[in-house]
Structures are given as C-alpha cells and as structure tokens.
C-alpha cells in the first residue's frame, strides 16, 4: 500500500516509479507504437497517481491500468492529430522480417483489440484481468481477442 498523504509517503511513490517505470514504458510503447508518446503517458500516469487522494492499494496494477487507459485514449486521439499533421514521434524499431511483419500487423489493430493482444501475450494477463483492466465485460474481451487474432493470422501466416 502506498500512502500518499504524508511527507514520508513520497518515498513509496518514488519507489513505485523506480521499480515499475521501465515496465510501464515498454507496455505503453507496445500499446501506442510511439516511444515519445509512451514517455508522456507514463509521466502523466504518475502525475495522476500524485493527484489521487488517499492511499493507493495495489500500486503497480493501478498504475498499469492508468497507462493502459491513457494509451487507448492516446491512440484514439492520434487519429485526430494525424489529420492535423501533428504526428507522434515514432522511433524506428529494427526487427527481423518475420517479427517486423507481426509488429506492423499489431500496430494496425484498433486500440481495444491491440490492448487485449498486448496484455494477453506480453503481460500474460488472464482474460478476466484484461476485462477488469479495460472495464469491458469478459465476453467483449473474448470477442476483441478473437477478432484480433483472426486478423493477425490472416496477415501474418502465409
């Protein structure tokens, strides 16, 4: 439990930052495809944690939830921004051809489907955990996963 309402509580949040920032950054990168955006999202997530009153239980999971939701929002917003010619910086990722093809296909998925796939295959989250994290019914998560995998299978497998 991270206590946020007293000066000594600064340390636990700092510790949370130190221990989990990199993992959250990787997760946001996978969800958004942009390192610059991922940096901003993780920063914002910790600002949100700062502003939250009272103790935070399950800090890492809570932070992960914020990052996932901010990333989904950012993906939706990016479509708008790109129409205004303000593109998020995307650093090149050098991958073997097979993985590069997979990564490109993942990046083309709609935000919710992509979030489900990343959480399932990178975070090894259970479907119920994903449903809780995204605030969707379990059936919706299954549907997202099914559709995403069907698309990926069609694009990736020869």
């Amino acid at each position, binding site marked *: 439990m991270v206590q946020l309402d007293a000066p000594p509580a*600064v340390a636990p949040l700092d510790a949370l930052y130190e221990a989990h920032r990199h993992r959250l950054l990787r997760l946001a990168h996978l969800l958004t495809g942009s390192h610059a955006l991922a940096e*901003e999202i993780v920063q914002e997530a910790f600002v949100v944690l700062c*502003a939250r009153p009272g103790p935070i239980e399950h800090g890492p999971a809570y932070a992960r939830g914020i990052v996932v939701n901010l990333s989904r929002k950012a993906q939706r917003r990016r479509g708008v921004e790109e129409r205004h010619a303000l593109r998020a910086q995307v650093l090149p990722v050098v991958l073997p051809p097979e993985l590069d093809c997979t990564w490109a296909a993942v990046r083309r998925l709609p935000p919710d489907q992509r979030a489900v796939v990343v959480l399932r295959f990178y975070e090894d989250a259970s479907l119920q955990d994903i449903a809780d994290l995204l605030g969707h019914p379990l059936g919706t998560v299954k549907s997202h996963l099914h559709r995403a995998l069907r698309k990926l299978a069609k694009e990736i497998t020869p």
Partner: protein
Amino acid sequence: MTTDLELDPRLDDLLRRTFDAVADQTPLADPGLAPVLRLDTITEAGRPRWRRPLGVAVVGSAAAVAVAVALVAGGPTDRSPADRTATLATAPPVATTELPAEAGPPADTTYQVKVWEDLVTEALAAGGLVSDTGAAARGWTAVPPQPWHLTSYMAQAGEPGEPPNTLIDLELFEPGRYRDDPVWAQQVAGAPTPGEAVPEGLLFLLPDGAGTVRTAVVVAEHGMAKIRVDGDPVPATDRLAAAARRVAAGSRGFDSAG
C-alpha cells in the same frame, strides 16, 4: 470462442517474440535522472483541495529535475489572497522550473509565441458566443463527438510559412458528463469515485522525452484544456502555463454554446 486461435502455437510464439523484441528496444531514460515526485507540493499538505485551483505539477523526465511547484497563479475558480499566502507559506522553497540547458533559450519574444497567444485570445474573445460553426471559422476544428461524450476543438499556430508547431486542444465534455463517467474519471485523475479527484484548475506541465516542458494541461470546468508545442523554440514555461489557464477559463463558453 478464442480457444482455437489462442492456442495457435506459431502465432502465439510470433506475438510473444515480437513484443519482447520491441519492448527491448524501448529507449529508457537514465534512471539516475528520474523524476522526484513532490507530492506535498501538489496536494498542499498532502491532500488535494477539491474544486479549488491549487497547484502546478511540473514533472520532469530524464534530463530535467522534476519539481512540483505550488503555484498561486489562479485558475478558473480563483482563490483568495489569504489562500494564496497560505499556499506560499506551506510550499517548499521551490519556485522555479529547472529546465535543461538543451531546452534552448526562452522564446518569450518570438513571433511563434505571439501567434499562439493571439490565437488563444481570439478563441477566448469568441467565448460563449462561439458555436461549432463559429469555432471552425476562427480556425478551431471541431472534432465530432466521440462515444465517450467528448467534443474536441483543436487549433494550431506557427510561424508564417512554417508548419504549425503548436496544438491547442480543448477536450470538452457534456456538462456533468466526465464526473459521471468512471472511465474518464480514471483516465483523467485516477479516481475510483467519479467527481472526487479532478481538482478544477489543476495544471500539469509535462515534459517530453528530452525533458523540455512542451505540454500544459489544465483541468477545466467541463473538460481539459491542453496546449502542446511540437516544434522549436519552446515558450517559457510560465507563458505556456498562462495560455493553458486562459484556454481552460475560456472553455466554459465553448461548452455552454456547443
């Protein structure tokens, strides 16, 4: 429903290897320069005062020393001088934003700053009279309402002949909506109870990956006002903050007329 596809071993393997490879290539800032989050200054003695404008959270990233500054610049709902004095008294002796040298010189006198300040002024002058059509005529682009009850207005500014480098973005909710929407409440403020953790007037200054403060976000009455400078030069942080506050204050007019 998903079992057959989930168990496809080749796809499973490809996805896992891809995600691991991409994650491994995520550039990570030097952890030794990680931000120091000063909660006491953000929350004024530890706990936010809801529905009061309170502070400025400056959270630096890798290259910047992060500072949370209790600021008394006022916001959409202003505070009394006594309150301001009290805030100053309780705030730690951190009153400046430490930007890295590579952030470049302050750009207060540049045309670019003038342009976007003029644009903000124009938008505010339109105030409560502006409609979606009027906003578009003034250079604000109304984005169709989203499923999460958001209407967004975007405008850009930049030097003549150059690509726009400043995004001014209003995210407006239907009155009362964001307080009723648990998803947004969580996204905006991490609030388990909608409406309790979105202190109106709170200003966030968010640096980019290089530690330069380019983004200011203010919680407004019915949404969020955000200004982001994508190009160079970067305006001084206080100018950025002031503009964001003005956009937030002006957003009430947009909201009521929308």
